[in-house]
């Protein structure tokens, strides 16, 4: 038994098995060796079997959701059983080459043939062969490759770090937790774990040296501990602890289906922050009464061309429909020079967090912005959709954005395309200038939503990703609270409302303070909703 310590970023306890995710490159040399052929053939047979099992798993998973695509994997299985391939491999083995090289060289001969066909489809199949070859070689060389899209039951994903593209196809049904060597509280791993409501521990030193695939793990996402191959006593203790917590959580979830009123009878709307339509199930399960922040960035990252209007429309519409009649606040694109987006030609800036980002970028990239507005407006015909502009500093930005919105509305009217004529528009209040001037800005919008993370970093002029400045991350200090109060009061003076959609909204210590300041809506990671509602009811 070993206990590893890291940073707890998502609460809960999970007991499962390590699936070590490494992106190690496969290296093969053409050396001959003296390993008996019978041994090589035995290893080959074993590796083929294992690779086939992996492909079958992918096939079975895909068949349920995408049967057309799954057919390809049926062909992959046949490829591994192909007699022509095994004959070829035998030829190389008989010449004395090592097994990995024999396999690689044989595959490459077939790949060459397919590539030379004058047929796009067949050329694609050549790429498939590279994939199969890669899986097979990993099995031969015992380089584990964990396909995150089809995990065995009770998996705890162990990795150096996880990026959005690693987890895009994550098998959400079988993952019980994350443990990573890198990353902090705002890392992708942390955000994803929160969204899935599973424990995560990040920043574990020498993690990959201490855990191997298949190790039994206990992840304590509250304490930040990872227990490797626990002894019976420890395991039993955690099993009963987990049972207790699960029961508590079940009770809370049951109660989370009801609205939350304070003791004085004020209803606080408790809504979810979501990052893609995939988060909707979880949000509904946890008792979200709508979406207070729909981050749309996921549509724009990891691609070479911007998403089209129809693609965006579908992604917005499906969420609006699922939550109808509850509100879904869609935030327009919120990115800047800290992200690499090839099609935007973002200029390298000395200080991207104070640079051309969010609404500032959208007002420059007019077509990009109008396409998104069109998609949001079209989706508004299918539910209760609201628009929110991020990073507003001055009223002129709201006026300009609203002018563009009106142009797009007019275009849609001309084309007789349906949308919600009364769609509400709000802004994120996350720059001190906006909070300080909230009483003027409120006349141009229907609501405010305070982004406490950015508001805090801009108030204290301290980059919140800079670990050396963590002492200045003080969202509950007087300066930030004063700005929140100004914002809330300004909205109430015009009969409008203010929400909070930053980390603070889901923080048990902060909720009483925010409610006391008059905040009307709290938007948070879905997993935090049940507890938040309980806290509100106690106030």
């Amino acid at each position, binding site marked *: 038994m070993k206990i590893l310590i890291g940073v707890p970023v998502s609460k809960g306890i999970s007991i499962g098995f390590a699936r070590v995710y490494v992106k190690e490159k496969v290296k093969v040399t053409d050396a001959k060796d003296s390993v008996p052929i019978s041994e090589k053939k035995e290893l080959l047979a074993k590796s083929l079997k294992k690779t086939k099992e992996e492909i079958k798993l992918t096939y079975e998973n895909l068949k349920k959701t995408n049967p057309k695509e799954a*057919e*390809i994997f*049926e*062909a992959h299985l*046949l*490829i591994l*059983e*192909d*007699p*022509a*391939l095994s004959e070829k491999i035998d030829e190389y083995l008989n010449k004395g080459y090592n097994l990995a090289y024999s396999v690689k060289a044989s595959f490459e001969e*077939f790949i060459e*043939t*397919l590539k030379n*066909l*004058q*047929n796009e*489809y*067949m050329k694609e*199949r050549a790429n498939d062969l590279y994939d199969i070859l890669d899986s097979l070689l990993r099995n031969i060389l015992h380089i584990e490759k964990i396909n995150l899209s089809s995990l065995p039951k009770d998996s705890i994903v162990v990795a150096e770090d996880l990026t959005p593209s690693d987890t895009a196809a994550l098998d959400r049904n079988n993952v019980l937790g994350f443990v990573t060597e890198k990353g902090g509280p705002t890392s992708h791993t942390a955000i994803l774990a929160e969204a899935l409501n599973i424990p995560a521990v990040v920043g574990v030193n020498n993690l990959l040296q201490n855990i191997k695939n298949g190790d039994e793990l206990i992840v304590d996402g509250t304490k930040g501990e990872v227990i490797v191959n626990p002894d019976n006593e420890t395991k039993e203790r955690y099993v009963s602890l987990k049972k207790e917590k699960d029961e508590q959580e079940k009770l809370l979830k049951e109660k989370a289906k009801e609205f939350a009123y304070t003791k004085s009878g004020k209803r606080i709307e408790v809504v979810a922050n979501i990052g893609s339509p995939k988060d909707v199930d979880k949000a509904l399960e946890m008792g979200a009464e709508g979406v207070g922040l729909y981050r749309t960035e996921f549509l724009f990252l990891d691609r070479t061309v911007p998403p089209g209007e129809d693609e965006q429309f579908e992604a917005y519409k499906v969420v609006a429909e699922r939550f109808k009649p509850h509100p879904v606040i869609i935030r327009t694109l919120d990115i800047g020079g800290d992200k690499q987006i090839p099609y935007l030609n973002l200029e390298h800036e000395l200080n991207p967090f104070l640079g051309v980002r969010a609404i500032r970028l959208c007002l420059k990239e007019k077509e990009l912005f109008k396409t998104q507005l069109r998609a949001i407006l079209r989706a508004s015909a299918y539910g209760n959709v609201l628009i929110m502009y991020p990073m507003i500093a001055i009223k002129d930005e709201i006026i300009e954005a609203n002018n563009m919105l009106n142009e797009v509305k007019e275009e849609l009217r001309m084309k007789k395309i349906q949308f919600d004529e009364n769609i509400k528009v709000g802004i994120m209040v996350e720059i001190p200038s906006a909070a300080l001037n909230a009483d003027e800005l409120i006349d141009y919008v229907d609501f405010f939503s305070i982004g406490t993370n950015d508001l805090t970093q801009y108030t204290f002029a301290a980059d919140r990703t800079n670990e050396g400045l963590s002492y200045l991350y003080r969202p509950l200090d007087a300066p930030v609270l004063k700005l929140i109060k100004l914002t809330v009061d300004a909205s109430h003076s015009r009969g409008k409302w203010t929400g909070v959609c930053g980390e603070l909204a889901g923080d048990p210590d902060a909720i009483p303070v925010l409610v006391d300041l008059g905040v009307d809506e709290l938007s948070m990671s879905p997993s935090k909703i049940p507890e938040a509602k309980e806290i509100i009811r106690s106030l």
Partner: protein
Amino acid sequence: MLTKTFTIKNKVGLHARPASVLVQTANKFKSDIKIEKDGRIVSAKSILGVLSLGAEKGSTIVVTVDGVDEEEALKTIEDLVNNNFGDPE
């Protein structure tokens, strides 16, 4: 030994699914089954071989079957081709 010439009529030709079906079918028989297209001869029991023919709609293939169950094998393959490998078009 039996030989018969066929024309591929289904829309996508001998692509992944039709090729898979053909190979799976061929593997049910003991006979040696070869397919020839434009002078290239491959085993019908090898998916890589069948794919490498690049047989599109309208291509002509010659199937040669040799073995104890050759008649049944050829008949089954003939049905498969005539049914467009189960494709609707």
